C-alpha cells in the first residue's frame, strides 16, 4: 500500500493538479453566480460544453489536423481562447436572459430557477446531440458519440522530479488556470464593475439604493463566469481531445462540489476547492482504486462541511475586509 503510494504519488499529484485546475475554472462560474444571485446555475455545465465545441469549430475552420509549433501555435491558442471565452460567455448571458431573468422578474422561488436551469441544461444537451453535432460538425446520426479533437501541440516532458515527468500540457493547464484566476481576482477586487459585483453579492437591496445597476451587474457576472468556463473548456478540449454532448455534466457536478468545498461565493475558495478536489481524487485512487474516486470526493466534502459549514474559506465574494 505505502509502496504503491510512494511510487505513484508524484504522477498522481501532477494529474490531480491538472484536473483540479479545470475544476477550479468551472467552479468560478458557479461561485460568482451564486454569490450574486444565491442560485445554483445548473446549466453552467452546458456553458462549458458550448465553449469546448466553439474551440473545435474554430479548429476545424482553420483546417488544423496535426500538432503545431512556434508562432502558429501561440496565435492559434490565443484565437481559440478568444473563441471559447466568447462562446461560453455569450451563451451564459443568453441563458441568464432566457431562463433566469423572467423568473427573477416574477419573484419566483429559487427552486423554480433550479428547475428552469435543469430544463435549459437538458435542452442544450439535446440540441447539440440532435442538431449541432450532426449538422455543424457533420457527423450525421452520431450526435451522441464522441467527437475527436486534433492534437494542438506535441506532448513532451519538460523536466522530471524523481520518477515524476512533468509534461508541457499539464504545465500549460496549471499555469493558464492560475493566470486566469489572478486576472479575475484583480478584476473583482480592483475595478469599478468588480466593486458593483461585490456590493450586489453582499446586499442587493442596498446596492440598488447606492445606484448599482443590478441587471447589468448580473449580466456581467454571467459573462465573466461563462468566459472562465470557456477557458476551462479549451484546456479540456486540448488535454483530452474528445468532446461529447454531455461532456459538461460530470465536470459540472465536480466543479460545483469544488466550489462548495472551498466556500461557495468565494473566488479563492473555488481555486483552492478545485485543486484540492483534483488531488483528493487522485491520491484516494491510489489507495482505494479509481472506482471509488467519486465516493472519496463526496465523503471529503461532507466531512469538511461538518466542521466548516460554509466551506474551507467561507462564503463571500469579496476579501475579508475589502
Amino acid at each position, binding site marked *: 500500500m505505502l509502496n504503491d503510494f510512494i511510487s505513484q504519488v508524484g504522477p498522481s499529484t501532477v494529474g490531480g493538479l491538472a484536473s483540479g485546475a479545470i475544476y477550479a475554472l468551472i467552479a468560478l462560474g458557479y461561485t460568482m453566480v*451564486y454569490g*450574486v*444571485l*444565491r*442560485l*445554483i446555475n445548473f446549466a453552467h455545465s452546458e456553458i462549458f460544453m458550448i465553449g469546448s465545441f466553439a474551440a473545435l469549430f474554430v479548429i476545424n475552420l482553420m483546417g488544423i489536423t496535426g500538432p503545431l509549433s512556434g508562432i502558429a501555435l501561440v496565435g492559434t491558442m490565443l484565437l481559440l481562447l478568444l473563441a471559447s471565452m466568447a462562446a461560453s460567455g455569450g451563451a451564459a448571458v443568453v441563458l441568464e436572459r*432566457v*431562463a433566469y431573468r*423572467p*423568473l*427573477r*422578474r*416574477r*419573484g*419566483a*422561488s*429559487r*427552486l*423554480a*430557477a*433550479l*428547475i*428552469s436551469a*435543469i*430544463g*435549459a*441544461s*437538458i*435542452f*442544450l*444537451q*439535446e*440540441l447539440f*446531440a*440532435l442538431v449541432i453535432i450532426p449538422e455543424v460538425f457533420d457527423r450525421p446520426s452520431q450526435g451522441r458519440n464522441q467527437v475527436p479533437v486534433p492534437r494542438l501541440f506535441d506532448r513532451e516532458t519538460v523536466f522530471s522530479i524523481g520518477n515524476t515527468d512533468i509534461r508541457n500540457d499539464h504545465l500549460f493547464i496549471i499555469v493558464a488556470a492560475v493566470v486566469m484566476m489572478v486576472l479575475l481576482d484583480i478584476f473583482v477586487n480592483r475595478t469599478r464593475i468588480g466593486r458593483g459585483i461585490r456590493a*450586489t453579492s453582499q446586499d*442587493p*437591496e442596498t446596492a*440598488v439604493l447606492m445606484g448599482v445597476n*443590478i441587471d447589468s451587474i448580473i449580466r456581467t457576472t454571467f459573462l465573466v463566469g461563462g468566459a472562465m468556463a470557456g477557458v476551462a473548456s479549451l484546456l479540456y478540449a486540448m488535454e483530452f481531445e474528445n468532446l461529447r454532448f454531455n461532456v459538461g455534466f460530470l465536470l459540472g*457536478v465536480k466543479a*460545483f*462540489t469544488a466550489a*462548495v468545498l472551498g466556500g*461557495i461565493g468565494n473566488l479563492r475558495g473555488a481555486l483552492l476547492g478545485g485543486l484540492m478536489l483534483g488531488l483528493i481524487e487522485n491520491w484516494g485512487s491510489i489507495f482505494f*482504486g479509481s*472506482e*471509488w474516486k*467519486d*465516493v472519496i*470526493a*463526496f*465523503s471529503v*466534502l*461532507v466531512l469538511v*462541511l*461538518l466542521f466548516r*459549514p*460554509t466551506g474551507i474559506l467561507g462564503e463571500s465574494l469579496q476579501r475579508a475586509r475589502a
Partner: protein
Amino acid sequence: MNANSNVRSGNPLTALRRTVGGYTDGVRDWWATAPRWARWTVYALLIALAIVAPSDAIGSFMSPHSHWASLLFSPIGTYVLLAVGLNVVVGQAGLLDLGFVAFYAIGAYTMAIFGTKYGWNFWPVLVVGIFMTAVSGIILGSPTLRLRGDYLAIVTLGFGEIVRVTAQNTESIGGSRGITNIPHPEPIFGVEFFLDPLPYYYLLLAAIILVVIFAKRLERSRVGRAWEAIREDEDAAELMGVPTFKFKLLAFFIGAMIGGLTGVIWASKVIAIQPPNFPFILSATILAAVVLGGSGNLPGVMIGAFLIAWLPERFRGFADYRILIFGAALVLTMALRPEGLLPPRRRRSISGSVTKPETPPAGGDEAGDDRPAEEVAK
C-alpha cells in the same frame, strides 16, 4: 427599479399566463369552499378513474407507442409516489434534496437482497425496506441537516452518488451486475403477481392512496404547520420555539420511507436491478415533477409527476426530439408559472416572499396573487 418590467404587460406570454392562471385559480377557489360531499365525490371519481385507467380503450389514446399498463406502473406510478415522498421534504419542509433517488435505491436493494439471499417474502420485506430507508434518512439527515439550503443540496446529491457507486463497487451485493431473480410478491386476496403489470399497478395505486392520505393528514397537523414555518423562515420558526432540527429530520425520515416503499414495490416487479437504474438524473426528474406541479401541493405534485412520466412516452412518435422539447417545456413552464401548475393556496397568497434576496423589492411581492407587477403598473 421595476419600471421596465412593468411595460411588459402587452407580452403575449403574460396574457397566456394570466388566462391559464385565472382559470385554475377559479377552480381552486371553488374547491376551497366546496362542501364536504362534493369533495368526497371528486375523490371517489378520481380513484375510480385510476382503477379503470389501465383499460385498453384509455391506453390506445394515452400511449399508442408503448404498453399502457406497464407504463402506468413504471414510470408513471413510481414517479407519482416518489414525487409525493419528495414533496414532504422539498415542498413542505423546504429542504432541497438532490439525492432522493438514494432512498429509492436503498428500498429496491433491500427487496433484492432479502428476497434473493434470505428468501424473504415481499410483505415482510416491505416493512424492513421502509425501516431501512427511514434509518438511512436519519443517518444522512442528522449530520447534514444543520447545513443551510444549497449546502444541503450538494450533500444530498453526493449521498445519491455515494449510494449508487458503492452499490456498483460492492461485490457482495452484485456489484455492477446488480441483483437478479428478485422474487415477485406472494399472492394476496387471491391476486397472483407474475409478469402481468396490472396487479403491480393496483398494488402501487393502493400504496399511493394510503401515502397520500397519510401525507394529507400530516400536512394539516402540528407537524405540517411546523414544516411550513421552517420553510418560510427558519430563524423565525426557531425563535418561536419550533425545534427546527427535529422537524427537518422528521421530514427526511418520512420522505425517505416513501422513497423506500416505492423502491421495494418497484424491485418486486422488475426481476433484476442494477446500479445504473438509480442515476442522478432521476432525482432531478422527480424534483422537476414536484416543482412543475406546484411544490407543497399534493394534487399539483401528482399531476406534475404524471405529466413528466407520461408526456415523453406519449410523444415517442417524435422520437429524438421529445427530450429536447421536454427541456424547453420546463424552462417555459417555469417562466410562465414559476410556482408550478397548481401551487398550494396558502403559499400563493404570499407569493414572492420565499424568493431570492436580490429580488427587486417593488410592487409584485405584496400584490395579492400571482400576477403582480403588471397589475400594479396599470
